[in-house]
Every structure is written in C-alpha cells, then in structure tokens.
C-alpha cells in the first residue's frame, strides 16, 4: 500500500528539549547536513507511523522569527517556502511567556501549529499550574503534554499530527497592533497586492508587519517588485524604532492578557538551578571552578583518548606495512601504503580526541554550563574584541583546532564567528607539542619546559593581536551585543550527547577527510618522484622544493632539510618530527635524532627557537584548512587564513632569528 506523506517541522526556543524530541521521533533514521548556502545545521529524519510516512525536519532553535541570526532566517524561510503540513512548536512549560512569543509569530506566518508542552515536571515541581484545556482554547491550537523520551507520548503526538493534517482548517489567530499600526499594515498590504508577480507563499500581512519592523531580509526579498518604491515611501514615513517597540509590546501584551488564564506561577522559589548558579557564577569561586572543569575536560580528552589513539596508530602502521609488502607494482604499494594509509592514519589518530571533545562539549551544552562559560569569560573576551562565546572554541583549540573551528558554530554573529575561525589556528594544538618537545629538549635542556610554555603563550599573544588587528581592518566593528539566555541547569542526556558526538565526529572524517586525502597524495607524489629516488630525499621533488624555498626561509635560519620537514608538516604538524627523522636518517629513535641535530652546524638553538615559532604559526594543517573552508564556505577566507598564517609565521620567526643574531646568540 502506498504510504501517505506528511512533512512536519520542529520549532522552538533553544534549550527546550527539541533535539531530544527529534531523536525520540526519528531514532537512528536521521540525516545531518547543512542548509543550502549557509553553515546552519539541517537535521531531518523519517518515521513510519500507521499508514503515513512522516518526514521530520528539525529547524534551528530560535527565540523569534525576526532576521537577527541566520538560524531565524533559515527557520522562517523553511516554514513559508516549504509549507510543512504541521509545525510543531516545542514549548518549555517552565518558561511559557517567552516561549509563546514565538507562537505568536508562527501564527502570523499562517502555519498549522501544534504545541508540545515539555518540561512540565520542572514547572510543576516549582509549583506552577498550567491549565492545558484553557490554553488549548485560548490559543486555538492542539496542545500535547509529552515526556519526550517515552514511547507513549510519541504515539500520542503522531496521532495528533495526523489528525491536525487531516482537518486542514486554518484558524486566523491574529494579534491586533492598534489602529495606527493597523492602518499602515493595510496601506502596505494594498500596495504589495498590486504586484501580480509577488511570491504568493508569503502572507501579505506578515510581510507588511516585517517591513514595518525594519526587517532588511524581507526588504531585500521585495526589492525587485515594481511596487517597492511605494512601499518604501510608506516605511520611510514612520518612526521605525517606535513601531518596532510598539509591535513587540503588543505581542507581549497579547500574551499577557491570556497568560494569567492558563497558568498560575508559583512565588519566586530557589530552584536547584538557582542553587547551582549561586556557586558556579559566584564572585570568588566562579572562575576557579570554571578553570578546574576545563582542566578536567582536557585531562579526560587526552589521557582517556591515548590508548585509542595508540590503537589506531598500531592498526594503521600494520595496515600500511601489510599493503606495502603485498601490493604490486612497487609504486602502487608505496602510494597506498606509505602515502595514503600512512598519511590518513596520521590524521585519523586524532579521531578519538575529536570524538571525546565533541562529547564533552555536548555535555557542557546540554547541562547549561556552556552559557555560563560565555557569561564568565565575556568581559575578558570583549577586551580583545571578541565575544564571550568565542572562549570555548579557542580553549578547545589547545586540543585540536579542527573541532574548535567546528564549535565556533555556536556563535551567531557572522563577524564574531569569522574572527574566531581565523585566530583559532594560532592556538597551539596537541599535534604541535612533539615538535617543541624534540627541539626544546634537544637544544634547551633544563629550560625546555619554559621554552615550551613560551610557545603556548606566543600562540595566545598572536591570536589576541590578530583578533585586534582583524577588528580594526577587514572585519570592522565591535563584537555583537551579549544578549543570552542562561538556561536552567539540567542533567544532560547520554543519548543526545552520543548522537551529537557521532554526527560531528563523522562530519570531520568525511569533510576534512577528502581534503586530507588529496593533501597526502600530493605530498607522496612530491616525495617519491622522480621515480626511483629515496622517499623524501634531496633528489625528490619535495627536496627540490625545499631547495627552491630555502632562500625565502634562510633569513629565518632554516636550511633545505627544515624546509622539507615544514612542507611535510602541512599534512599534520607532528609529521615535522617524523620527516626530520627521515631526512637525518635517524629512524624512529628520538635520541639518535637529537644527537644528529646537535651535530648539524646548520641548526642552532636560535634557529630551533625560530623553527618552533614558525611551525606553531604557519599555515594550518590540511585538516584545519579543510574545516576552515567548510565552515566559512569561502575559498577567499580559507586562502586568507593560509596566507596570513604564513606571513605572521615568517615575520615572527624573522624577528626571533635576526633579533637573536643581532643580540649575539
């Protein structure tokens, strides 16, 4: 039997349990991708129920449908243009007033709404009473109380969705904005309706209201229309700020008139969440606790991931050897074994790190602590021209730049996000540590620890200077205002965190993976040709390239061998160490490499310092370049990140080497 199709969209404020409901509805049958043209995550899934095949689209969580962020534009365009059969709004029962604000906007869009009341337990525990029957009547929409994780609740919900779809009755539930505004709405509606070719999917009244509120996105949508001039005349005749305030006032007024009839709120009580906040944002304890928790997260990411990283390392080495020895002809064995498996393996080693980082990030987010982290760090970040929300991505950068750049998605403002993405690569990630350990250990002996620490500080300083510099030049303006909900603390659900970890981890493997693959093949070709030379030796192309760039890197104190190692380091920075091993013919032993480095007059303590700084700052590894491309969606910014990084690295290394030489070191 042919199944009937239903399309439903999930909307709601952030932190209302929308994702949990989505996961409960679709289970493993979900698809995560991006909305076309923007880096807003699109999640969709399917569920078969009775004789229906239901497609569920999880819209980004928004407080409103104005055009404040990309999320909001994506959500409203979907509702208007794709016309889902039913729009489910997930509502936090413990926070009804603000949640209903979105409801008023959904109603204005003319969509078929169904409200799912979540978090009723929290509301009831604190003593709120919600009269669902009354609420249903006042809002003229079906309301379902769910416990999102229970099967029964889900079936009830799907039954209601089907019923809602079958009824197909549009209710006109509108908010009156008072005679002055209503007159203007009518005027604009009239002007707009004269354009026969207008996009009829957009309700006239909604477009008119949005225009009065000064919505530039909607303005752009009608800018081709022949009536655009007339509409703009009307809009220019009003005090837009006043209208904006008045319209918002009226919406809340509408909510406030019906609100007391459907909900009685308990007196202010001190909830568990308030208790936790009292301590975690305490004037004296807040920052130490924050630092301790972050340290704990790192400890876990690295210490717990190490055995898994070793397993991948052992497996990929074994596999590469196996392939090299069994494949014919020889060049193919070398390409697949040494090039592809070896190269990809070197990057895959970080997958456990990335998975754990994402898992922890999801726990932090789900518990509500991520918002507090931004709250606690905002003042500091603001001083360097950034937003509080940039702190966590930057901190994650110490682990691995790749998930750090992906975590920048939580920053709504495009400029803030771009700056964060551009400066994260300067944060010294775990892969750079082996380079410091080798060179600082070899040339600085007892001061090695101090030198390594200085490298981390250098990375941070360069990141801060870059942020200031970018703010003053190409990404002008102040950081976006900090207007953020501090959601109640909750115990994060394991299932949601695991799904989040899985989705993002695989996204990394898939997207970064393809660029990494290209990168390692290119490097292999350069190291192996002309055919017959020893892999990565002076006679190979990469050796020639090393010689070719030597004059450029000479002022920094690098000879051709270091240049070659740096080129290899583009795949993953710790490969610098391995390729030094190859170039100095010392094999895997780090003691032997240290001895040979000390014996080489071409490399001194000073040039090793310059080299450490250079490898910290120069072009990010291919995986990072891959994510920068993916997250900014622009080759222009990706190229900028590369060129800027190399320039900064060159200047810094130049200052260190030449300055040091001048001082007589």
């Amino acid at each position, binding site marked *: 039997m042919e199944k009937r199709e239903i399309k439903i969209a999930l909307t709601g404020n952030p932190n209302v349990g929308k994702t949990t409901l989505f996961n409960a509805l679709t289970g493993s049958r979900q698809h995560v991708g991006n909305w076309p043209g923007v880096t807003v995550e699109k999640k969709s899934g399917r569920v078969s129920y009775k004789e229906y095949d239901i497609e569920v689209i999880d819209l980004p969580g928004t407080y409103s449908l104005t055009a404040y962020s990309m999320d909001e534009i994506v959500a409203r365009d979907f509702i208007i243009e794709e016309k889902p059969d039913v729009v489910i709004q997930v509502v936090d029962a413990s926070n009804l007033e603000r949640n209903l604000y979105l409801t008023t906007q959904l109603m204005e869009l003319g969509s078929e709404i169904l409200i799912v009341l979540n978090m009723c337990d929290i509301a009831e*525990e604190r003593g709120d009473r919600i009269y669902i029957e009354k609420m249903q009547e006042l809002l003229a929409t079906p309301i379902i109380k769910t416990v999102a994780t229970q099967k029964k609740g889900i079936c009830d919900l799907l039954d209601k969705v089907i019923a809602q779809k079958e009824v197909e009755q549009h209710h006109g539930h509108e908010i009156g904005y008072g005679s002055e505004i209503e007159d203007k709405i009518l005027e604009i509606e009239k002007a707009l309706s004269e354009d026969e070719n207008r996009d009829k999917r957009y309700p006239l009244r909604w477009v008119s209201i949005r225009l009065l509120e000064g919505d530039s996105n909607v303005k752009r949508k009608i800018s081709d229309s022949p009536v655009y001039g007339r509409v703009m005349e009307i809009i220019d005749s009003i005090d837009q700020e006043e209208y904006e305030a008045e319209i918002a006032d009226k919406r809340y007024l509408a909510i406030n008139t019906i609100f007391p009839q459907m909900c009685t709120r308990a007196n*202010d009580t*001190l909830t568990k969440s308030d208790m936790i906040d009292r301590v975690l944002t305490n004037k004296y304890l807040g920052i*130490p*606790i924050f630092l*301790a928790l972050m340290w*704990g997260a790192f400890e*876990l990411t690295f*210490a717990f991931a190490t055995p898994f990283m070793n397993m991948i390392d052992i497996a990929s080495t074994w596999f590469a050897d196996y392939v090299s020895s069994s494949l014919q002809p020889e060049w193919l064995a070398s390409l697949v074994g040494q090039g592809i498996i070896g190269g990809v393996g070197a990057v895959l080693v970080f997958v456990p790190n990335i998975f754990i980082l994402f898992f922890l990030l999801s726990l932090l987010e789900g518990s509500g602590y991520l918002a507090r982290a931004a709250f606690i760090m905002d003042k500091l970040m603001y001083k360097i021209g950034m937003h509080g929300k940039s702190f966590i991505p930057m901190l994650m950068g110490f682990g691995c730049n790749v998930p750090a750049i992906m975590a920048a998605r939580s920053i709504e403002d495009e400029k803030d996000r771009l700056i964060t993405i551009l400066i994260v690569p300067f944060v010294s990630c775990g892969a750079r540590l082996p380079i410091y350990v080798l060179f600082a250990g070899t040339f600085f002996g007892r001061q090695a620890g101090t030198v390594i620490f200085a490298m981390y500080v250098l990375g941070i300083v360069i990141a801060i200077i870059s942020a200031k510099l970018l703010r003053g030049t190409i990404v002008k303006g102040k950081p976006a205002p900090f207007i953020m909900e501090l959601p109640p603390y909750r115990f994060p659900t394991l299932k949601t965190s695991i799904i989040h970890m899985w989705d993002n981890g695989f996204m990394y493997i898939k997207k970064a993976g393809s660029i990494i693959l290209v990168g390692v093949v290119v490097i292999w070709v350069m190291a192996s040709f002309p055919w017959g030379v020893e892999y990565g030796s002076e006679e190979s192309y990469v050796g020639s390239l090393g010689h070719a760039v030597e004059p450029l890197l000479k002022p920094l104190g690098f000879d051709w061998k270091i240049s070659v190692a740096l080129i290899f380091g583009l795949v993953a920075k710790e490969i610098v160490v391995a390729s030094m091993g190859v170039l100095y013919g010392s094999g895997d032993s780090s003691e032997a490499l240290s001895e040979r480095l000390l014996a080489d007059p071409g490399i001194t303590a000073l040039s090793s310092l310059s080299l450490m700084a250079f490898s910290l700052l120069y072009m990010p590894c291919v995986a990072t370049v891959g994510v920068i491309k993916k997250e900014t969606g622009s080759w222009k910014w990706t190229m900028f990140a590369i060129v800027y990084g190399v320039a900064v690295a060159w200047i810094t290394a130049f200052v260190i080497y030449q300055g040091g030489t001048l001082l007589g070191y």
Partner: protein
Amino acid sequence: MAINTENASYEPDTRIPMVFSMITGSLYILLGLLQLLAGVAKILMGPDVRIPLTGILFVPADVIGSFVLLLIGTVFIYGVMEMRSGIYEGVSYAYVGILIALIFAAIYMLVSTGNMLEAYLLKNKDFIDWTPLSDLRPGIYLAILPLFAFFKWKDMFEPVPEGGLLK
C-alpha cells in the same frame, strides 16, 4: 526530619548539610594540602622525596590535582560559612560541592580506565608496573562521602518543603 510545609516563615534546618560540609570540606582541604606538599617537594627536591602519610593515603605528587581538591574543599567550607550566618541558600554550596567532587572522581576513574587499557590491552611498556591501585587517589576515594550524600540528598539535606526553597 519533619518539615512544616504550611508555615512559610519556617526557618529551614541546615544542620545536616552543615555538619556534612564541614567534615567533607576539611578532609578535601587536608588531603589537598598534603598533595600540594608532595607535588611541590617533588619539583623542588626531585622524585625520591617521601612525604609521610602520602604512601598509605595514596596521595600522588600532583600539584594541579591538589588545586582541584582544595577547590572542592573550599566550596564546602564556603557553604558552611554562609549557613552559619543564617543564609540557608548556603546549602547550594554543599550541593554543588557534591556534584563537582563526583565529576572529578568520574574523570579520574575514566583516566584510570584509559591507563588500564594501555597496560593490559596494548601492553605499553610505560605501563609495565601499572596496577589498579596505581591510580587510586584522594580525588577518587574521598568522593564516597559526596556519593552517599548525592543519593540521600532529598531525604536528609534539603531543608525545604516540596517546591524548592522559599525566598
């Protein structure tokens, strides 16, 4: 503990969380100091220095870890101070202290699991002497008190009627 829910002016009894916080907080601070001492001694005088008691109390020479212990202890004691001066919201510190203590115990145990994999599964030569006792530390065994309190919280610690603390 009988709680009168009818009477809004009722003064909640914070004796149990106070005594608990006092004991737990002091233990965390004491062992934190011992661990700090061991850590500093190791840095200043080399790895062979033996601080008394560190052996039988499984105290590692770990400075950062000692800050965590001291922090947890401070959170508990901060709560004691507030509760003593009659602010019953001070019970928040006991609650959060319990949560943080448990979080760190969980972190240490997961790290230990990682070491176990290294030692038994990968047979890493750096972990040749590893036994499950190698990773036992105050951050783990002290958390037994908070663990107990976490499960008994509703019955014993909450000095408030159903519906949260009255403000």
